[in-house]
């Protein structure tokens, strides 16, 4: 009997509450490894981990690579610029070609929603979704849950607000699902053009005004305003966004006393979040990055660790 009965990690939806707690607990024990002098254990020796990134990424890709290396797995990176994609190969063909080389797991980031799901159906090795389109980014949500639990001692019952472009944020989508599963009280905030229809079906609150939304919250989670994804009708200008939706120190004062500020990065300083807040003591942004390695070690271990594949 395996601890974790999944071939792939595609969506927070597939995880039970017990699965999530298992991942977080496992990450806690893996976190220590990264602070050692010799930051390596032999757990995944002989396993092959492929990073297949069709979208630019610094944080997530390096986090996965470091996580895999610290577990002694062999890793290699493929990105769309050096893969056969530019020669016209389809995603499924790339997946099958990789299969011929017998990897244990691939970590896939793709601009198309559902790409990891499609890949997972087509191949026999595991697939981790490292962000698909505007859909999900499950490992980011898990590291955020880990960080919240570490800082607050719990997730259940906490009041959490997510501010930004909810419609186009896979981080928001995965976080909403994960936070709801662990019993948090979730509010989303942002201009109406950036809040998707039917979001209230998740059982969350929608408060467009960020000051109102931040009031009495325990966790303030910002999202990157993704200039590269915006059509020109969601908001008039960065200046306007920063003026009416950018989070400032004054707004943070409305939150609960020990509230923490989170951001999945990369940050547009002074746009979604005032620059001074990024480096303030209540910001846990770099902790999130640190915890990302531990969470990804835990996920790799749970998916491909042990002798049976």
């Amino acid at each position: 009997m395996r601890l974790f009965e999944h071939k792939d990690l595609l969506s927070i939806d597939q995880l039970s509450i017990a699965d999530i707690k298992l991942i977080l607990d496992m990450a806690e024990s893996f976190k220590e490894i990264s602070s050692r002098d010799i930051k390596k254990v032999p757990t995944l020796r002989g396993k092959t981990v492929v990073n297949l990134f069709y979208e630019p990424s610094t944080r997530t890709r390096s986090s996965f690579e470091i996580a895999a290396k610290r577990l002694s797995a062999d890793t290699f990176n493929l990105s769309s610029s050096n893969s056969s994609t530019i020669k016209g190969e389809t995603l499924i063909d790339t997946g099958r070609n990789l299969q011929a080389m017998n990897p244990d797991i691939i970590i896939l980031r793709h601009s198309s929603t559902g790409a990891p799901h499609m890949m997972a159906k087509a191949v026999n090795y595991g697939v981790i979704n490292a962000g698909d389109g505007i859909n999900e980014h499950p490992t980011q949500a898990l590291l955020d849950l880990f960080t919240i639990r570490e800082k607050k001692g719990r997730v259940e019952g906490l009041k959490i607000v997510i501010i930004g472009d909810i419609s186009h944020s896979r981080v928001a989508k995965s976080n909403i699902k994960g936070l709801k599963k662990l019993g948090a009280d979730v509010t989303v905030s942002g201009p109406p053009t950036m809040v998707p229809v039917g979001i209230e079906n998740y059982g969350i609150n929608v408060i467009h005004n960020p000051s109102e939304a931040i009031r009495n919250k325990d966790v303030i989670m910002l999202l990157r305003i993704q200039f590269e994804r915006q059509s020109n009708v969601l908001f008039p200008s960065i200046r306007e966004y920063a003026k009416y939706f950018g989070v400032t120190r004054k707004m943070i004062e409305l939150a609960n006393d020990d509230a923490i500020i989170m951001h999945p990065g990369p940050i547009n300083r002074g746009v979604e979040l005032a620059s001074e807040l990024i480096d303030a003591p209540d910001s846990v942004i770099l902790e999130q990055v640190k915890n990302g390695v531990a969470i990804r070690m835990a996920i790799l271990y749970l998916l491909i660790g042990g002798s049976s594949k």
Partner: protein
Amino acid sequence: MITWIKSGSIVDTIKGLIRKADILIKDGIISEIGIIPSELKQKEGVKIIDAEGMLIIPGLIDMHVHLREPGHEYKETILSGAMAAVAGGFTSIACMPNTDPVNDNRAVTEFIIRRGKSAGFAKIYPIACISKKQEGKTLTEFGDIKDAGAVGISDDGMPVINSDLMRRATEYASYHGLTIISHSEDPYLSRGGVMNEGDISTVIGLSGIPSISEEIMVSRDILIAKFTKCPVHIAHVSTAGSVEIIKRGKEAGVLVTAETAPHYFTLDHTAVTGYDSNTKMNPPLRTPEDVLAIKNGLADGIIDAIATDHAPHSTLEKDLEFDKAAFGIIGLETALPLTLALVRAGVISLPEAIKKLSLNPARILGIPGGQLEPGLPADLAIIDTDYEYTLKKEDILSKSKNSPFIGKALKGRNKLTMIGGKIVWE
């Protein structure tokens, strides 16, 4: 040559009833409907088809298919499309002009008609473009194209954004006795969308196409038809709002007709969960409330016709990430069982269902067919409404297999198709 179809139940689309009778066909023409004396059997050269327990329907007429010839013959040819049609009980199909090159001139229209004749099987009726190259700028030569054999005018697949062009198109088409078929979509509202915008698109993270993208253009085209007093036909109606707008148009006396496709009354947007690109079409599968409104629209006569929007695509266009996959599914071989499901559910009567699949589209396009009467060509299908089967990929005659109904249990199947008294499929 005499053919005697014995003991079937004949669907009368004019009177709206079903009666048990024989059909006698002489030289391709229906000569008699009624009880035929059995002495005939003794005569030589009489072919007898026993239709006991079967339904005899007028050959179905699909006013909205995409045959990919010329240009994309690897997806569908006029021949493979015609074969798929007769397998599904269709004897006449009207093909949309978005081929390569597009059907915006007499030469392409004539080519399609010629290929249709040499292919045999179903009768092929071309629909020509509203605008040259489907660019939405200049009208095509409606008169010349009609003389060549086109039966309708549409930029299907490409919405006509320029309202003035649409207005002039209805006026000029009406002069030539042609109906404009509107692909109603505001491309600014639907831009980037790949499924219905709603709670499901939010949950599964796909970009949405809002219902208003269709409804705004349905409204506009009905307003144009009202203003010009010319007919307009709304293609592939998918939303409750469109049904309501068309209803009001009809009540106000506007010359508007409408069609929907079987997938819009069979599936809703929850089918997209799982990212199967065979659930991707334009307009997209909508909400359960929209599905209900489409059914009510069919029942109330707001929606006149059922057309498949048969859109063949190969695995090259469909075996891709959902957002990159092509829009559209095939429909010729599943329209009949899916429509019969509506009849079983009590939404519409059997004669009414068959009428929406034959006589009504024939009337909208002004082409023959859709009824079984002495003196008319024997274009008909013999169907077994109780036949249950699972749709298999390998049984599909269309060159492309992009159907969300593969592997699904269907009930009701065409057993025999006859055109001009000749059996073309059995």
